[in-house]
């Protein structure tokens, strides 16, 4: 599977819609994900971006990395802005004011812009049924402002606002399950992905954009800077997150669950967690708790996929 993924990328378009020369950190998993997502989407797309790492690195005036029409407005409203673009295209095409060429609408935001401050706008847009794809690039903390915890930060992780101290062992809440929140809106397509499995990611983006209604894809975007790993280990840690069951890859198509990258046996969780600076303080009891919840989550997912 891994090898096939390495070669499959070469079958994608050579055209870059997220151009090189942007200002992301070395080894940025999020930039990699954005690049792949836009290769999958092609040129007939308009993207609305939330404030965050990808906005900052790609649009310092007068420069831009975007080879497609792209707009940034604020932090919490990417879904609402995308909803406006979708409404505009619909009415302008109906009135014959623009060509009836099919144009896809995408919203993008980080985990903070999605699961925290942008959740209301996203829920509203999904509920109203705008035909758009929302992509959450989840690097599991507010990396752009200096690694503060979000509600997508994993349990136990050290961040600058969930520091591992002598009394409190880092983040004390479980990662908010945003894909499940999206599923609860009964939208046609929800999936998780990571650029370490590029073929899987590209397929899901293509399915999402083709869905008849709102689609949501949650992409684990490895952040060497925030997680405390070497910049050349991005792909490896993305794989480990999946192979240990910490971040399972699955999709929910019209309510039907399917694990898209399945394993007979998961790798030991320590192999993913302990090499990362943000988890290195974890004591055995915390590790045990995480292990239990991850196993539970994996079982639940397998059960739903079998239904």
């Amino acid at each position, binding site marked *: 599977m891994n090898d096939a993924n390495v070669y499959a990328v070469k079958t994608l378009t050579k055209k870059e819609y997220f151009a090189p020369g942007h200002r992301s950190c070395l080894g940025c998993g999020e930039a990699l994900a954005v690049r792949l997502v836009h290769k999958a989407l092609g040129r007939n797309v308009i993207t609305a971006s939330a404030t965050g790492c990808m906005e900052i690195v790609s649009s*310092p005036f007068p420069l831009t990395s*975007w080879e497609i029409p792209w707009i940034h407005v*604020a932090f919490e409203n990417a879904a609402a*802005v995308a909803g*406006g673009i979708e409404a*505009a295209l619909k009415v302008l095409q109906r009135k014959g004011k623009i060509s009836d060429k099919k144009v896809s609408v995408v919203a993008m935001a980080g985990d903070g812009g999605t699961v925290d401050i942008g959740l209301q706008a996203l829920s509203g847009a999904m509920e109203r049924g705008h035909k758009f794809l929302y992509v959450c690039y989840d690097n599991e903390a507010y990396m752009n402002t200096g690694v503060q915890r979000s509600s997508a930060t994993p349990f136990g992780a050290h961040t600058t606002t969930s520091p591992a101290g002598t009394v409190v062992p880092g983040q004390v809440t479980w990662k908010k399950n945003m894909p499940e929140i999206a599923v609860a809106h009964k939208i046609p397509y929800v999936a998780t992905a990571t650029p370490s499995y590029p073929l899987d990611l590209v397929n899901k983006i293509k399915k999402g954009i083709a869905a008849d209604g709102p689609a949501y894809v949650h992409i684990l975007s490895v952040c060497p800077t925030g997680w405390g790993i070497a910049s050349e280990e991005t792909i490896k840690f993305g794989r480990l997150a999946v192979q240990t069951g910490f971040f399972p890859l699955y999709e929910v198509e019209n309510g039907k669950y399917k694990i898209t990258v399945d394993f007979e046996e998961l790798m030991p969780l320590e192999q993913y967690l302990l090499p990362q600076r943000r988890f290195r303080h974890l004591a055995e009891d915390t590790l045990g708790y995480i292990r239990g919840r991850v196993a539970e989550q994996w079982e639940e997912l397998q059960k739903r996929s079998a239904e």
Partner: protein
Amino acid sequence: MKKRVGMEVSFAAAEAVKLCNVDVVAAYPITPQTHIVERLSEYVANGELDAEFVPVESEHSALSLCVGSQAAGARSFTCTSSQGLALMNEIVYITSSMRLPMVMMLVNRSLSGPLSIWNDHSDVMSIRDCGWIQLFVKNSQEVFDHAFIAYKIAEDHNVLLPVIINFDGFILSHMFESVELMEPDVVQQYLPPYEPKYALHPDRALTMGTYGMPAVFTEAKKAQDEALLASYPHILEAWKAWGDLSGRHYHPVEEFLTKDAETIFVTLGSFGETAGEAVKALREKGHKAGLLHLRLWRPFPFDAFCQAIQGARNLIVIDRAVSFGGPGGPVASEIRSALYNKEKRPGVYSMIAGLGGRDVTVRDYMQMFESVTAGKASAYEIFGVRG
């Protein structure tokens, strides 16, 4: 054919927005704005208006959605009041900095707290420096006319700025007043279909809403300020063209008996109507009173204003919002600052009145006039406080 009818002012507003043939309406209900958006949703539901009506989950999303739709080339409209504007605040500033020519009706209501659904100007004064063109209208006909005028100004390629039409909640929005309607073809002659200068579309990849490093930020803000100031002659043009078409002429400052006036009231919004009655009564008693209604609030019409108050000894500026801990009401402070460099300048009396729906009657204006002309008024007071 001109048709004069009596209707609720909110419905006249909705009728005008329909005649503008807007493409996208996004709104969230808040008193006293509701009747406008209810009526617009009915027009869409009945096929009288071919638009996308998007009932969003908050005002923040209402304006954000309009930013998206306007950026994609659709004529967009939203409408709010009070807390709704406060929730939108962040996006209000971004809309103007992105030069998106949309129109918002702001049905003025107090900002909490204490919670009050009634009328004053504390909502709009909280966005004084937001970079939109800001108009205050004072009766049903002005509300109706300014929907067309606002889009005409906003969409002018020499302007490309968003416009806010302010009008008073309840005391205007919920009144039944006479209004002369316009035929759709006449409106279309004045306001042709929207031709965006820039729009998001794959046929032309544009990046909008970039990040401004310190090396460019000051220049961006200077350019924005210049754009707002430079909109002034185009606002006058839009009014002139509307006047030629409808016979109703509007100006940045509307003067009533100011020519020889010694004491001039300055008002915004529908309070001008009552103040006008007070001025008439004062004139009958032989007092040299006048009234100046400030229709254009941003860009502030300094020259027209100074011209209009030439020769006056006193200005009584009625503010409908408090600038807590400040030197006076927001409008009065601005006027003082505008006059500071003039050699001959009148006394400026800042009267805060009509907060949170408190009525200000003809008698109240006469009382203000008496205390100012008798030299008993202080430079700044909250008028009519009980107890």
